[in-house]
């Protein structure tokens, strides 16, 4: 206890300083987002109304001819909606059932399945489409061949190159997001709310519909919205499974127009604008529904949900989990591995027909893929690190500061979610081309685009982490005499650590596998894995493209394992 030893107080005038720092923390990201999101959108719109020289940037003549032309291709929009809505519904159904099995029933194997069910998402639609075309193509597809050799029937069992096939593959590879988002809400829901409903005489079914479902609605809606937008912008699956059947959705049509000579940018932009309008409407509608019901109360503290013993149903539910893991993980990875070992095109089980030369080729011999792997790793690390840093800062500003702009900041951060990624990348490409600084054709442009498109996901994750840390934990450190830096080092970061790592690895994985956002931005010298696999699929032959896909999958799995280890290890003091 020092008696007035410190003497004169430090004159600081921090009310103003602190306020300025806080304001910068809010306005900097806002400006970054406004520029990085608003400008591409503006260019997209300008291009959509461009009726003059298709190559002109910025356009000089404006009209609505492109939209009139679109009327001839309403099937593209129709197909997009058909596929997106059906796949969203299917993915939500799978996701809700899986989340419920995992978190609300006593079906065994929760820990294992929790991990296995999450993996298909980072593996990604590109790997999924590739694998399922090897499994389900009517002639060479592994499953169809198996079926033919077992039954002798010549008719293929199923054809993955079809609308149901596209919907199925899209749904199973996006379902883990639904499991994650709905599972989080299920874990936090206080079962006293359900129990009290039964106490007041409501049966199980009535309780489910009158209490459980309404309480889960916000989580269900926001998961559905997330899936719907990302499916509206889905590219790999409709291209790989739909182009053969001449089935076009908006994104594949945009790609075709982009590739045609001369490229028809204005029409592509017009399609993009229509898609953005549709997703924006969906966002607006769900926000309206959610506004009417705010259920902040459902999040109990330190609370373990009660699990239901499903008795006779247990086996069936377990079978459902296994089936999901089989179609989304085991079969796809298995067929890719098998295909990557082949000397020639077919899928042979004979070990004598196997070789490792495909791996040698993609890893060492072929500079393009070698470079793509290196670039993707760089981008993964960069997006993970910067994305988590930005998302954490924003989450901090939104949840911890009293700054007036914080709600606006949160909305702006979630805004990229309303853009299908491929469309955003399209506008973003124009932006970097029109900038005076040399950004186009560099990895920085891809990095920037990744950070923007993945920001909503990263923010969602980090704000979940930040709100769980009671602010008095930090205040207690301040009171104990710790300066800001010490408080961060000894209290905040150790508490955030698991969450930071989890979100870092999520960003790493989805950047390594991303194709929609990088398709237009990567080019010679800036090859990245997603687009490289995609162009290899066009030209490289199944064994080599499979080898590349396996390499990507291995990178993702390694990252997953390493980070799980790190997160579990006790932090050293």
């Amino acid at each position: 206890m020092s008696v007035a030893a410190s003497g004169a107080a430090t004159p600081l005038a921090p009310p103003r300083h602190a306020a300025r720092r806080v304001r910068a923390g809010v306005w900097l990201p806002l400006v970054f987002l406004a520029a990085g999101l608003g400008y591409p959108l503006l260019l997209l719109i300008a291009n959509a109304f461009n009726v003059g020289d298709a190559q002109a940037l910025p356009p000089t003549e404006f009209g609505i001819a492109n939209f009139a032309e679109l009327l001839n291709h309403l099937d593209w929009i129709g197909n997009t909606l058909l596929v997106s809505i059906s796949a969203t519904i299917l993915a939500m159904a799978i996701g809700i059932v899986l989340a419920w099995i995992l978190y609300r029933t006593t079906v065994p194997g929760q820990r294992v399945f929790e991990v296995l069910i999450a993996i298909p998402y980072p593996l990604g639609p590109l790997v999924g489409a590739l694998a399922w075309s090897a499994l389900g193509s009517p002639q060479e597809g592994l499953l169809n061949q198996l079926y033919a050799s077992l039954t002798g029937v010549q008719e293929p069992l199923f054809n993955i190159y079809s609308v149901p096939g596209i919907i199925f593959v899209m749904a199973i590879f996006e379902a883990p997001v639904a499991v994650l988002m709905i599972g989080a809400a299920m874990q936090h829901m206080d079962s006293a709310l359900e129990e009290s409903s039964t106490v007041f005489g409501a049966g199980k079914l009535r309780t489910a519909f009158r209490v459980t479902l309404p309480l889960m609605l916000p989580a269900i809606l926001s998961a559905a919205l997330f899936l719907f937008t990302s499916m509206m912008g889905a590219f790999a699956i409709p291209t790989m499974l739909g182009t053969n059947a001449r089935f076009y959705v908006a994104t594949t049509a945009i790609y075709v127009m982009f590739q045609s000579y001369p490229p028809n940018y204005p029409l592509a932009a017009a399609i993009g604008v229509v898609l953005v309008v549709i997703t924006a409407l969906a966002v607006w509608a769900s926000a309206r529904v959610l506004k009417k019901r705010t259920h902040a109360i459902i999040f109990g503290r330190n609370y373990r949900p009660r699990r239901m013993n499903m008795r006779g149903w247990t086996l069936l539910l377990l079978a459902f989990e296994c089936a999901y893991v089989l179609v989304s993980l085991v079969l796809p990875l298995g067929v890719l591995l098998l295909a990557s070992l082949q000397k020639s095109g077919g899928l042979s089980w004979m070990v004598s027909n196997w070789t490792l030369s495909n791996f040698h080729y993609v890893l060492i011999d072929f500079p393009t893929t070698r470079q793509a792997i290196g670039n993707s790793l760089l981008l993964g690390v960069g997006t993970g690190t910067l994305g988590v840093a930005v998302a954490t800062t924003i989450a901090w500003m939104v949840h911890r500061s009293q700054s007036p702009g914080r709600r606006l900041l949160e909305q702006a951060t979630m805004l990229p979610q309303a853009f299908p990624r491929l469309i955003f990348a399209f506008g973003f490409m124009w932006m970097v081309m029109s900038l005076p600084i040399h950004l186009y054709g560099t990895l920085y442009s891809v990095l920037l685009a990744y950070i923007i498109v993945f920001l909503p996901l990263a923010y969602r994750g980090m704000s979940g982490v930040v709100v769980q840390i009671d602010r008095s934990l930090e205040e207690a450190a301040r009171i104990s005499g710790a300066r800001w830096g010490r408080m961060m080092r000894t209290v905040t970061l150790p508490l955030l650590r698991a969450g930071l790592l989890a979100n870092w690895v999520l960003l790493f994985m989805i950047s390594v596998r991303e194709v929609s956002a990088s398709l237009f931005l990567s080019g010679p010298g800036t090859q990245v894995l997603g687009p490289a696999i995609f162009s290899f699929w066009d030209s490289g032959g199944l064994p080599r493209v499979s080898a590349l896909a396996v390499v990507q999958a291995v990178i993702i799995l390694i990252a997953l394992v390493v980070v799980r280890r790190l997160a579990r290890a006790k932090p050293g003091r």
Partner: protein
Amino acid sequence: MATEIKLASGNAAAAARPFIEVKGLTAAYDSKIVVREVSFSVAAGEHLSLLGPSGCGKSTTLRCIAGLETPVEGEIVIDSEVVFSSHRRINVPTEKRKLSMVFQSYAIWPHMTVFENVAYGLRTQGVREDEVRSEALRALQMVGMVELAQSSATALSGGQQQRVALARSYACRPKAILLDEPLSNLDARLRSRMREEMRDLQHQFRLSTIYVTHDQEEAMAMSDRVIVMRDGRIEQEGPPLEIYDHPQSRFVADFIGAANIVSGHVRPHGAGQPVILDVEGTAIECAPRAALPRAHADGSHMLAIRAVYAELRRDAVPELANHWPATIERRILLGDLVTYAVRWPGGNLRVHGFPNDLFEEGSRVHLHVPSVRAILVDAD
């Protein structure tokens, strides 16, 4: 620790000198003002409670002193050092104010052991590690938690977390301790035990303490002085018994203890004569006051009569003032106390009695209110 006690008693000798001074403190969230021009001081070694209903700005006041919120206006002096002054533009950051605080949620760091939690403040001060060890263990000993020193902080019960939080705040040798409803998460039995333990710690260290609570029992039991707050302002300030016996306003009388509020009209009286309040035709002689309190809008005055200070008797004592026949309407046994709903000429009154001498419902009794216990208070 021995040196601390010496220093602290040295401070106690100069008790008249305020150790913490809050002058004209005004605080706001966004643009909503929640604390308005609050001024008070705490003497060295004094235990002060801020008492008031939920949302009246107690926590905000405390957090301003801790430096966790930045006030809009005012000045805060701790141990002769100005730590905040709006017009001199001084704002010493929290970590330099050398205070300690116990949070309502305890804020025990879940990623550290009990020992590390307690040692944290000492380590930030750069105390030598062997000294950190002995001081932290001593603080844990004080609250009876030495055996659990190495266990993880997440494995503690509410009461244990509370103790760790206390040990942590005493261990770091603070200038003063701030407590924000530290007992509100405990069950009633544990609460009363912790109350006594904290009182003991307080006597042992004589640290200046500011204690925020909305529980009047806690404030009464623990403090040298109580400040009753209402809507961001100080309503009344004084030693617990003074506030209990002489509430200044209807709000304080209502908030602290069980009081009957009776309204009536003051009869004209000469200077130096006792004030007589006319309640429905019944005259009540009131405790003398320098001046009449604020009247209600309709000109009536409010009288507070504590339920424990009204007396019930079986026999009349005609020579007493404020003495009326009454009827017991209802009797509610509360355990240590009995509450009677009593009908008397002035209306209904709640009266506390003890279970050793019970009155039957419906029985006719005599009610006596000593005139010094009939307190005229400010109307709202």
